[in-house]
Structures are given as structure tokens and as C-alpha cells.
């Protein structure tokens, strides 16, 4: 996607966020019942920030047209989408699903081993290379699971999830 186009979408989202913040600050409880000074209402700074963000969003929207004239600058180019997708998916599954559902040791061991295997498995390699990759990933998984559990539970006295 071109940066100018992405900036335009972002400007719209930021404008909505700024307007929401402004409205949130305006409608926020003014604590009259506690007889606070009107200049110290909790919504004051959120209102200012919402207004400022909306102004910046407008300026960003306008600047995106000037940027488009200067030349096509693209975002999210030069990297690997598949690596990014796999990384995001495995990390999210670990942090949002496995942690809290499985015991910390097993969640960490499974995540580490799967992540390492996904990125180090030699699909076109010999059986020996494949076996080494699998063994390495499993060993890393168990090592990190055991080591980090030991460190945090025994040394830092953290009740693991």
C-alpha cells in the first residue's frame, strides 16, 4: 500500500478517535456533587487531547496529498509476509490462548518448539537434517520451558499462570 493512502485511512481513524476522546471528556462526570473547582474537572485534558488529535488528523490528511505528489512511498515492502503471518499467529496463540489454558511449562515448551521448528525445518533437506531440526526445536522448547519456569517460580517467587 502507498504511504499516502495509508496516511489518509489513518487520518480518518485518528479523527474518529480524537472526536470520541473529545466527546468522552465533555460528557465525563464533572463531580459537581463533590464541589470540585470547575477548572479541575477530570475531562479537561482528555478534551484538549481529543481536539489536538483531531487537528493533527486533519493536517495528516491534507499532507498525504502533498506526499503523493512528491513520489510513491510504499509501506510494508521488502519483508516476508509469510514469516510475519506465522510469527504473529504463533505468538498470539501462545500469549492469548495457551498461557492460562495449559500449564506454563507446557505452553512455553510447545510454543518455543513449534516456533523454532516452523522457521528452521529444512523442507528440502535430508532425513538426518530434518531429524536434527526436530530434535533441536524440541530440546530448545523443553529447555526454555523448564529454565524460565524455574527462574521465575523458584527465584523470583512468581505464581506462574
Amino acid at each position, binding site marked *: 500500500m502507498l504511504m499516502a493512502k495509508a496516511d489518509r485511512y489513518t487520518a480518518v481513524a485518528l479523527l474518529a478517535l480524537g472526536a470520541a476522546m473529545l466527546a468522552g471528556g465533555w460528557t465525563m462526570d464533572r463531580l459537581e456533587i463533590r464541589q470540585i*473547582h470547575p477548572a479541575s474537572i477530570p475531562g479537561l485534558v482528555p478534551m484538549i487531547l481529543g481536539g489536538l*488529535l483531531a487537528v493533527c488528523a486533519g493536517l495528516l490528511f491534507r499532507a498525504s496529498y502533498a506526499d503523493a505528489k512528491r513520489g510513491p512511498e510504499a509501506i510494508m515492502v521488502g519483508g516476508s509476509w509469510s514469516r510475519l503471518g506465522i510469527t504473529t499467529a504463533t505468538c498470539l496463540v501462545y500469549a492469548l490462548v495457551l498461557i492460562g489454558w495449559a500449564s506454563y511449562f507446557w505452553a512455553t515448551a510447545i510454543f518455543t518448539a513449534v516456533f523454532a521448528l*516452523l*522457521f528452521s525445518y529444512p523442507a528440502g533437506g535430508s532425513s538426518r537434517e530434518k531429524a536434527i531440526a526436530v530434535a533441536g526445536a524440541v530440546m530448545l522448547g523443553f529447555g526454555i520451558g523448564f529454565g524460565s519456569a524455574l527462574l521465575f517460580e523458584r527465584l523470583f517467587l512468581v505464581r506462574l499462570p
Partner: protein
Amino acid sequence: MSGLQDLVAGLTMVMTPGMLFHAAWSTLLGIVVGSLPGLTATMGVALMTTLTYSLESEAAILVLICMYVGAIYGGSRSAILLNIPGTPASAATSLDGYPLARAGRAGYAMGLATVGSALGTLAGIVMLVMIAPPLAEAALNFGSFEFFWLAVFGILISGQLTADTTPLKGYIAGILGLMAAMIGSEGIHAHVRFSMGISDLNAGIALIPAMVGAFGFAEVLTAMWNKAGVLAVAKDKSDRTIPEFHDLWRYRVTILRSGVIGTLVGIIPGVGEDIGAWGSYAAAKRASKEADKFGTGSHEGLIAAETGNSAVVPGSLIPAITLAVPGSASSAVLIAALFIHGIRPGPLIMIEQPHFVGLIGAMLVVATLFMAIYGLSMTRLFIQVLRVPYAYLMPVVFVLCVIGTYALSQRLFDVWVMVAFGLIGFVLRQMKYPMAPLVLGIILGDLLDKSLRRGLTLTDGDLLPFFMRPVSAIFVALIVLSILFNVPPFRRAVTAPLRRIGRRRDA
């Protein structure tokens, strides 16, 4: 001179076997973290904060400072050998470091980087112990008005100087950080704002999960997205790691200038090491008789960049300790870590703990010492570190992001915050929004909010004292000038006399 006396007293406290042991391992770990592209100093310090909860406060702070110093220096390894800066601070280093490595002089380049970094940090330490105590005393006279403008100035200047393309994106990042700080119970009436019915949000967004997400998880994603660099392993027979003395003596003015520039850049809130390196590099190039060699393997350029970025470390601690306003993203984490360990940075530090600045200076000296020893003796080890595949490294980093964040308050909500900030941070980075103003916004949001409303209450809603008190007026002038500097006609008018002087000098 009491600053230097405190430094000597601090050294006697730090020079114990236990403290030296902590300094030794944490500096080495810092260099390893910094040398790996994708792992930055801020991430290292944030993760290390989660690993030092159970240590004594002095030992924990020593570990974090050694990690910070080591990581900023370590970034030069991959900048020189891979042409990929290990940390953003080393981007300028790669300009001359990589050509030297390609010419078979990688060892010498790393030696120069080591000595430059060590001298830069030492220059910054001297300025830290000299400037911090009087600054803290001056800040004792600050009221709500001054603190409000200080927070505004910090976010504004950070947004302006750290943005890649347009300052507007820096400002937006700063405002987003401030907005994140508005979530949760506010500091004057304890009213809960924007919690959306989620009780975990009542206390607001904690800094460490946000930082670990924005600098840890986002960096894991960035590292896996990017392609790996090519290691420059050519070796010339004349290559050596210890720099020649005449090379250093020849560039003594460059070293001194870069040390001062780096430290001053460090003092500016939320600006950071990369600007220190670029500023020093540009100044050295402008003043050099060998300006044409810059970018092709210039020893002077390499020394300037490394001295500049390392001097930012002590420089950034000056406002962090005395005003609780971080000079860089890493020092923002350090402020959070200081609070965790029961130390309250801010103007009262010189009253509550008058020797603290000297102690921090001493910790920096010890970190520099270990950095120099490792840098000059372990060149081969660091080349091996760069060969560790991301497939094995990144899951370990992410596990530490998760469990380190969880360990802070032992609640899964912090892990979700970390993940959210990681995803948002990655997208914002790809769209060239700087992270430093965002972080600064989160840390300064409470100060800005309380100072404005407290000041308005004191003046019964009158805005005039915000502009008329002397220090406030200076801040307002600086803020107006820095905004106007973005307007091309104003900038041209201001810089025209300087350009004329430059042309006359060249002629």
C-alpha cells in the same frame, strides 16, 4: 566539585565483589542484546527490569544501567559486520564501520567503536555529576505551571526530533501516548476515566507492559519481517583490535565535541541515542578536513558516531533522575524501574538521596570499564553471536516478554496489554511513527494532567501565570519556536544568517 566527590564515594560502594559480578554479566548480556539486530537497548532494559524484581535496589539499578550501556555499545557490532544497526543508535556507525569491515578492517573498526563509546560515556558521566545536582536544586522551585510546560515541551521536541519523515507523525505519537495515560484513575480526584467497564483498567495502563510490547514484541515481529543481513567476514592481515594512539589523539577534538553533543542531546527529553549519533556525525563531517572520506570508512566518522550515541546514555539520565522526565526511551524504563525499587526520581532526589547521582555515575563508570574490556577482547565471540538463527532466538525473546510482563503484577491482563502495544507498535513503526514520543506521552501524561488542573485551580482558572512566570515563559518561547521552525518561510528566515556565515567561511 561535590559532584565528583560523590562519584568517588559511589565508586567505593560499587567496587565490591558482588556488585562487580552483577556488572560483569549484565554488561556482557547488554552487548549481546545490542549486537543482535531486532533487539534494542530499550527492550533489553525493559526485559531486564522484569528479571530484577527480587534483587537489592542498588544491584538491580546497576544491572539495568550495565544493560543499557552494553546494549547501546553492542549495536555497533552488527552495524559494522552486517551493515544492520543492532540498535537504531548505531545507524550512523554503519556508514563508516561497514566499509571498513568490507575492506578487512572489522577488528580495527570495532576497536575504534569501543574506545569511542568508552570516551563518550565518560564525557557524559562527568557532565552528569556536574549538571544533575544544580539542575535538581533549580527544579525544586518548579511549580505546576513549569512542570506542565516541561511535559508539553518534552513531548513536542521528542516528536519533532525523532520523526523519520514529518514532525506531525511524532506529535501524533506523543498525543496517542498522552491519551493512553488518561485511562484509569486520575491523580487529583481519583475519578476513573475511560475504563470501559474493565476493572483491570481502573489502575491505568502500566508502563512496563506497554514498553515490553512496543519495544519487545514489536521488535520480534520486525525482525521476522525483515531479511537477514550479509556478514562481512573478510580479514586483512594488518587488522588489529586495539586502536593506535595517534589515531585517537588526532581526533581528540572530534571525541570531545561528540561527547558534549551526545550528552546535550541526551538531556533533551525523549530524543535518544540515534539523534546523538547523527548530530555528532554531522558536526564532525562539517568540521573535518577529510569530509570526503565520510561514508567510505572514515575513522573520524566512526568515532564521532559511537562517541555521540554513548554520551547520550549518561546525558539522558540527567533529566530522568532530576526531573523524572526521560531523556530517551530506555531511560523511561529506568524511571519505572527506579519507582519499582523504591527510589523516587525528581527534584527531591537531592534531598532524599543526595548521593544518588554520584552512585549512578559510579555505576556508569563500572559499566564502561567492562564494556571496554569485553569490546577489545571478545571480538570473535560477538561475531559468533551474530550467527545465532532468529528461529531459536525470537521465541525465547517472546517468552521473556510474556512471562516478564506477567511477573509484574501476576495478572494475565498485563500480557494482553503487552500484545496490544506490540501489534500497534509494529504497525505504527511501519508507517514511520516514532515510538519514543508515544512512550514519553505515557510516562508524562499524569504529570501534564495534574499540573494543568492543579495550576488552574491555584489561579482560579486564570491562564496568565502559565505564561508570565519566568521559567514558564522560557518554555513557552521554546515551544513556539520549535513549532514555528516547521514552517518553511520562518525556518528560512532564521537560518539565512547562518547560511551566509557558512558561505563566507567556505570562500
